């Protein structure tokens, strides 16, 4: 009886603690969203009433509209480059028996591990000389480089679950190497490729540190604009832009979750896989 009671107490304690921690994890995001609908003229919580004034202000300000457009123009090509190069590299690493594969893999994964402030400073130094600093192309290339390891990581995990004998079977039946890949292997890894691309998009859209170093007044993504405003006088427009960024990340996460469910089942590695996904920030 005492054993049962103490077990119940233990469980109750654990649930209460967990609830508190979940509130800690989630409440900042919820609060940004609520503040963005505030009717007050300044940042205060809880807001005295609700209104859409900050969104109206946001979508009426050319500074923010330009910044959103810039972010999109960086995100789309960089995600495309990262997904293409990353998927190809994952297939190469998984299938081609290359000498020094370990070394090549660590090189490709390095942007995920090296502290991003170092990457940012280093890129600024070299990109200045190459005249890429402050240009759209520079930011596209930088974001693509940062996102490649995440795509490789995601697709490599999927490649390990696809039996290469399937492709060999297609080859013996007369398919070309190219056709065998596109018709047999690629459909099987497609969900992973798409989630790698989503990840690359989120990394680019949310990226700040490298962007601070590489942007210019003419080419200024949303996060850099928000960064310079947050340090000045803060008004709830920032909450509105923050809420938009959150909406973007959460929809990407929802999509990723759906894709994940359709992946091959034995995916115990997934929990470890997601761990490294945010490491570049």
């Amino acid at each position: 009886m005492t054993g049962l009671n103490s077990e119940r107490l233990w469980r109750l304690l654990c649930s209460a603690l967990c609830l508190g921690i979940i509130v800690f994890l989630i409440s900042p995001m919820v609060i940004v969203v609520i503040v963005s609908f505030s009717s007050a003229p300044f940042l205060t919580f809880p807001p005295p009433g609700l209104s859409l004034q900050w969104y109206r202000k946001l979508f009426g300000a050319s500074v923010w509209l330009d910044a959103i457009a810039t972010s999109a123009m960086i995100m789309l090509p960089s995600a495309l480059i990262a997904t293409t190069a990353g998927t190809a590299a994952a297939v190469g690493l998984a299938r081609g028996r290359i000498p020094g594969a370990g070394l090549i893999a660590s090189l490709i994964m390095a942007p995920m591990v090296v502290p991003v402030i170092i990457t940012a400073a280093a890129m600024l130094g070299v990109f200045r000389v190459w005249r890429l600093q402050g240009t759209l192309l520079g930011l596209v290339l930088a974001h693509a480089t940062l996102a490649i390891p995440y795509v490789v990581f995601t697709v490599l995990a999927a490649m390990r679950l696809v039996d290469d004998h399937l492709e060999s079977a297609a080859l013996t039946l007369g398919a070309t190497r190219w056709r065998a890949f596109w018709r047999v292997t690629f459909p099987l890894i497609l969900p992973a490729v798409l989630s790698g691309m989503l990840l690359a998009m989120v990394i680019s859209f949310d990226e700040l540190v490298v962007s601070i170093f590489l942007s210019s007044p003419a080419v200024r993504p949303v996060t850099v604009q928000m960064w310079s405003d947050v340090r000045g006088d803060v008004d709830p427009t920032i909450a509105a832009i923050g809420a938009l960024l959150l909406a973007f990340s959460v929809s990407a996460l929802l999509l990723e979750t759906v894709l994940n469910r359709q992946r091959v089942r034995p995916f115990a590695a997934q929990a470890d896989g997601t761990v490294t996904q945010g490491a570049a920030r």
Partner: protein
Amino acid sequence: MIDRIDARGWLVVPAVLLVGVLFAYPVSWLLVLSATDPEPGLRNFTTLLESPVYLKALWNTILISGSVTLLCVLLGYPIAYAMAHAGERLRRLLIFIVLIPFWSSILVRTFAWMVLLQQKGLINRTLIEYLGLIETPLTLIYNRTGVLIGMSHILLPFMILPLYSVLNRIEPSLSQAAASLGAPPVRNFARVYLPLSLPGLIAGSVLVFVMGLGYYITPALLGGPGDVMIAQLIEMQIADFGNWGLAGALALVLLLGTTTTFLLVSSSLIEGVR
């Protein structure tokens, strides 16, 4: 057949070129500058070791990352435990809840803490107006408290997820066996469960600590003048002083700190994965 397999190896070339030219070359260039700019020699490193400002920032970096790691262990363990022992639906929900902050922008989350922690923020207003616990507002931002709260919040998922993946694989029968042999819950936890969870705890701690070492945005926004970390020094050397050699030296120190931490614990990490 062999040459066909080898042919697919060429697919790594675009990624290697991109990462090599746009990442590896710039980073090596910056690190080399530490010993060559403004003149060849170890001047930059002696400057680092002789200046109290830089030493203070190095110490801050280690201390803040260490404290954040500890906080993340305390906050992350219960959640990871709950995730590992919940039913399928609750588990999915919890994973989703942990992944939301994980996918969200660091800047937005730091901004949220600025709103919460400010003088007239939610926390102070709750304590003063709604609960009446205190009279004068607490100083929660632009100091160490703000940095620790913000960084723990941002790094917590990196503790929870590796820990969960280990806890999830612990055989429940082991704890049951200990219980049936008469071990009280606390003792059972300390002697059976906790040691089995150690690999996850170590993996999560290393991840949080190492990531914390290089943090820039959160300490810059939530910290005060006494909480400057090494990443802010790197930024300052470049943006304010144009001193690339010293920035390179700081980068080298930061990189050495992160890699040695990884290497020191890599053996236990590998054990944890197996």
